[in-house]
């Protein structure tokens, strides 16, 4: 694909994210990166599983967690996953405005999730005195959920930068892979959250 073609928004193939060699590389490389991220989160999950009962006489998982907030957070993140699917749908239809709209909704949902998480953490710290330093369980909990939260934060910054940078010029073969790769990242964050709400919160409640 030649240079000029890649910048022309009037022409868009059916899979714009993979139409150029650079796009193909990004697509493949990012999937591989997610393979590595799988192991990264597995190591954090493993640490959490090993230390989940090491409460050092502090509050236990069952005492701490409230299902309502976690349910809301789960729905927020799952929905944001769907909205980013919508954004990719419009990317493939070469409809930039609608894509930006759905990405905007994704961002709002992402920020709401983060707000809930910050509220949750402050709640644990102020109400229960449950901190990163209070027990091995606390360290493992904040490390795992915090790493996920850090990924969400980074994803938000990434998304905002992408949306603002390309707001004026629309889609082309140079930025389509960037949007696509972001959506992969965002789905992966959702995948991790599915295991977090299952293993940390629900299983924490069950005991």
């Amino acid at each position, binding site marked *: 694909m030649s240079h000029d073609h890649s910048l022309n928004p009037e022409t868009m193939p059916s899979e714009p994210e993979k139409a150029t*060699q650079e796009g193909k590389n990004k697509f*493949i490389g990012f999937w*591989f990166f997610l393979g590595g991220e799988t192991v990264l989160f597995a190591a954090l999950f*493993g640490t959490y599983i090993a*230390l989940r*009962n090491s409460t*050092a006489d502090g509050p236990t998982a069952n005492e701490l967690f409230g299902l309502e907030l976690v349910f809301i957070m789960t729905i927020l993140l799952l929905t944001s996953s769907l909205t980013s699917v919508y954004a990719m749908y419009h990317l493939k239809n070469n409809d930039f405005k609608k894509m930006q709209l759905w990405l905007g909704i994704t961002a709002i949902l992402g920020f709401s999730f983060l707000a809930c998480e910050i509220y949750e953490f402050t709640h644990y710290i102020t109400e229960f005195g449950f901190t990163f330093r209070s027990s091995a369980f*606390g360290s*493992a909990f904040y490390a795992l959920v915090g790493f996920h939260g850090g990924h969400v934060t980074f994803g938000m910054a990434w998304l905002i*930068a992408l949306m603002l940078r390309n707001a004026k010029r629309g889609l082309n073969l140079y930025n389509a892979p960037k949007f696509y790769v972001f959506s992969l990242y965002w789905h992966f964050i959702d995948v991790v959250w599915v295991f977090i709400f299952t293993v940390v919160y629900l299983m924490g409640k069950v005991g």
Partner: protein
Amino acid sequence: MSTAASQKRGFGTVLWDYLTTVDHKKIAHLYLFGGGFFFLLGGLEALAIRIQLLQPENDFVSAGFYNEILTMHGTTMIFLAAMPLIFAIMNAVVPLQIGARDVAFPFLNSLGFWLFLFGGLLLNCSWFLGGAPDAGWTGYVPLSITSPGHGVDFYVMGLQIAGAGTLIGGINFLATIVTMRAPGMTYMRMPLFSWTTFITSILILFAFPALTVGLFLLMFDRMFGSAFFDVGLGGNAIIWQHLFWIFGHPEVYILILPLFGVFSEVISTFSKKRLFGYTAMVFATILIAFLGFMVWAHHMFAVGLGPVANSIFSLATMAIAVPTGIKIFNWLATMWGGRITINSAMLWTLGFIPTFTIGGMTGVMVASVVADYQYHDSYFVVAHFHYVIVGGTVFGIFAALHYWWPKMFGRVLNEAMGKLTFWTFFIGFHLTFFIQHFLGLMGMPRRYWTYLEGQQLDLGNQISTVGAFFMAFGVIVFVINAIYTAVKGEKAADDPWDGRTLEWSIASPPAHYNFKQMPLVRGLDALWIEKMEGKGRLTPAEPLGDIHMPNSSFLPFMMSLGLFIAGLGFIYQVNYNWAYILLFGGMAIMLGSMLARSLKDDHGYHIPKDELEREVD
């Protein structure tokens, strides 16, 4: 930097060129110089260890300093010497072997190098800032938690940064091999070095995240007061051992598999034969990688995991001997009946086979749980892993350098000096480490600062130290050889060894776009096929056209510098509030550079067709 082009330019231009380059061939040079520097540093540390152990109750270095030296020797050799030198060879060779103009992510390739370099520098800053890490290269908790001063903090931050660089490098090679192969270059036509690079990169991808997490936990415990390893608050020290070895065992295969590829290339070229059992070699590599992930707990036999877990890991470990054996026999069978040329590259390869076999044999010995209780933490283990890592990795790196030096620098290394290096290093190596098996069996523990008289350990240690100096001599000769070659060396032909693979079909050193036209690959040993059919060169797969090339960038350097500064900030924020300036400043530089990279389009540039046509003449 012996290329003709660079000699005409000023020093400043060359420096700036290398600081900003995204060309895989120049990044290979950078990795070679960076890794080579740390290899010499690690070698000095090794000599200090051997001098200290020359005689009983020696006090050449103090006990505390000895701990720092041995920790840094291991850490430096694994992370800062062996890995980057392997990356140097991969960068120099893989894109050429698969017929690509560059790697998939030239920018990330450069970032990977600078992260490694700044990580290594940060780690070594510790020497001047209150003492180096002293908890062993494995950094076992609780020792690494309780170690006073900032030594272990430098270990954590340095390895974290260098490790990120390695992960990036691994992903880059994976994507390169998947998406950038020349027309006709199917997976089963790839030269074995490209195959082993591919498998190694998979191991990097899945192993390094475990180290990343382990280092984070250690960092949190040391710098932010968390309790992962604090038994008083319910922590567990075994978690570190698991995470470290889930990374650490695949890591030793990361260190050896690429060199298996190198030996396959060297043996096949200098035996003038197609590699025997190519398919078996590929699948043996895959099998080693697969099994390599399931054996990490054999480093933890003495921890007390229980007989069931120990037996499982013991069996899995012994199973690895099977694919490795397949490889050894295939190499021998390749040489069988071949027209063998013995030069430096081939000597290193021939030296490797028996040496590595001994290392593999002791490997099976230590894989047996009951016997391992005797060998554990003794010099037997030290001897074992030096036989595989030096006998495999270092021999392999030397073989690769002699073999590909013409392609990397356009000059052939001096043969006489090459042979001198091999013989002194080879003899020195066996002097140093063979005797250590027996020292270990006699009960000498590893990592001890000194030993007492009258325990029959004196003679063995003396022999070992003498051997170390032979090795040092060999390395010095190699360095002289490299410098001599750069100044007066014989200019290399495009195909000095009558090679079989694509890299020998282009100029030495190659033009910065590698291939003017993408070659059409018609089978394994693509160049050899064309030679046998009388043509001698590859058919182009495309008409001559514009070539798209990536732009150079200074941002990788800035990102890595930012992380380096932030690393210092993380280390010192424990004691001083001003360190937060470093922490946030460094992160700002890093994130700012990332943002700049993201916001500014980088479409690369084109080399126009007529310019390429002019170059023909």
